[in-house]
């Protein structure tokens, strides 16, 4: 299915052939464009996208405007609140919170994007293969999937992050990347289950049967007929996966099994500040605020995308007629 419907593709209906393209009586809008327009009409979703992009930009470019780095100590400003010199205040050791926030946001965004993107691709392939082959393959793969769901991921995270046997690995791989890999391993199963059931209903459609009888290779059918049809679900799962991974990082780091010093993440900042919430409140509330500025807009975007993809949804408003 191509996303650009061309006129000669559907002459059978006899409708399109009667229209003269040059008169400009109508406009062909590609599917992508429709979805984009529907999304842009949703104000809260666009606001969410803008905030999200701003926070991401803060994570990647915020370090350029501040002279401080994450570890250097300023003896004149120890445990001080936000000021003109240290915009977000300083820690009890006298290090600059702004610089740490920049690195923390970058780490969390990277964890979210990597886990969200890779796990959704893997889940799509896994779910489609399960649905396409069915039978024994499906049974074995479903069994493996459910076993993965069953394994308590929190313990596996704890083992991998604490394990000293993997010392050599840790020297080459930074701590946050290790956490990313473990989160990735335990983040695709639910999506794969949903994709499987969706793909199963697609498999029984006539065009897939036709392709099968014509002898199109299985992987090609999966790629050409299944993946585009579950595309909207994949995008939704991608944005959901980003926030799930950011959330998981904060949760795990909060109880001490995630990102560790000298890496900074939102979780590590929130957790190190939680013991000082009464004496140094900005240390706790600023990272938490940034966390919500990341995750909140993501769920607004997710909502907007869902409405944009759903042709029956009325919450995206109506097309305004162009004035001629």
């Amino acid at each position, binding site marked *: 299915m191509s996303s650009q419907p061309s006129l000669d593709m559907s002459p059978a209906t006899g409708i399109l052939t009667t229209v003269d393209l040059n008169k400009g009586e109508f406009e062909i809008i590609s599917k992508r464009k429709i979805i984009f327009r529907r999304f842009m009409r949703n104000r809260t979703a666009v606001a969410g996208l803008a905030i999200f992009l701003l926070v991401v930009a803060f994570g990647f470019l915020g370090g350029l405007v501040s002279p401080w780095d994450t570890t250097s100590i300023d003896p004149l400003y120890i445990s001080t609140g936000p000021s003109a010199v240290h915009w977000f205040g300083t820690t009890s050791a006298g290090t600059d919170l702004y610089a740490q926030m920049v690195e923390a946001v970058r780490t969390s965004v990277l964890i979210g994007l990597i886990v969200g993107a890779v796990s959704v691709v893997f889940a799509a392939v896994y779910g489609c293969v399960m649905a396409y082959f069915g039978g024994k393959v499906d049974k074995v793969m479903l069994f493996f999937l459910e076993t993965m769901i*069953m*394994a308590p991921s929190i313990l596996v995270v704890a083992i991998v992050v604490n394990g000293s046997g993997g010392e050599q690995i840790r020297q080459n791989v930074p701590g946050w990347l290790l956490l990313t890999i473990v989160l990735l391993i335990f983040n695709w199963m639910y999506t794969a289950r949903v994709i499987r059931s969706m793909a199963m209903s697609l498999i029984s459609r006539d065009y897939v049967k036709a392709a099968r009888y014509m002898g199109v290779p299985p992987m090609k059918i999966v790629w050409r007929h299944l993946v585009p049809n579950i595309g909207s679900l994949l995008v939704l799962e991608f944005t959901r996966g980003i926030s799930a991974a950011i959330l998981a990082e904060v949760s795990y780091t909060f109880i001490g099994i995630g990102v560790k010093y000298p890496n900074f993440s939102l979780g590590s900042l929130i957790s190190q500040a939680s013991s000082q919430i009464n004496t140094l409140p900005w240390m706790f509330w600023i990272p938490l605020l940034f966390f919500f500025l990341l995750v909140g807009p993501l769920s607004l975007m997710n909502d907007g995308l869902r409405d944009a993809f759903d042709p029956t949804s009325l919450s995206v408003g109506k097309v305004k007629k162009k004035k001629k």
Partner: protein
Amino acid sequence: MIKYVMRRAATYLVMIFLTTSAGYLLAVSTLNPALLEQEKIPRPSPEQVQANFASLGLDPSLSAWDRYTQWLTNIFLHWDWGRSPNGAYINVEFGQRIWVSTRLYLAAVILSIIIGVALGVYSAARQYKFSDRAITGYSYLVYILPAPVAYFLVQMGAVAINSAAGQRVFFVTGISSPGVEPGWPAFVDLAAHYVVPTFCITIMSWGGFQIAQRQYLLDSINADFVRTARAKGLTRNQAIRRHALRVSFIPVAQSIAFTVPAIFAGGFFAEAIFAWPGIGLWSIQAIGAQDVNAAAATLAYGSFLFALGAIIADIATTVVDPRVRIS
């Protein structure tokens, strides 16, 4: 029905075996307690460390596979889950903590299912009214709230209430007060300690059930068979309760199993925040102390809880869904 549940239970047993084995092999190849021994003063010689661990059945010189088979035979023949690097028996340590955690998790699971499903039905029957928006909005808010941070904030709130009231209204750490008489006073004390953690896990867990139940009930509330029931003279509430609810509960019941891991993790976080001597806190500390056997035992426990949730889900499904009972 019994046959169906038995067959599922057998599958779950195989799954528990697989996750625990994989977890053990992972733990045995990454955790290394000998490194911690070197931080002791006076520092023991490598031979002492080796002899010490060998006597505990934690011989680091054996290959991972040999240790695995040794560990597995001990479990199957003697139900012995091995020992910790400090010499404690896993069985004893585990036995002391298992009820603390299981009671907490079970109470939280049951409460969140009941509250979640009830609120889901309530909000679906009042779609787009204020109460629906408030309840569903709360459920979506919970989705983006990291559980430990939320528990921490509840704990701060409870502490604030305590200091405002000038006396201890809520217990925010620990599981029991020292020096309480056994019997009824001890039970009241225990219940008082349970309140805050159970409350925390429950308010963070019902959202998923609420959203699912609302969604599925809305799907079937306008179905033809519900309209037929209304036409036959049932009130709207009767029609929802007797016809729509039953159908819409099937997918919710099936999803129970898959929310148990989240509640399990939530219990871990709660134990870590509220300093509860349960399985969760213990296992995190044990893994920090490079304890392979404790890690494997908790993995088995976590998988077992999932299986329990899955079997509850299967039974609930067979009760409400006649198609499962017949086939």
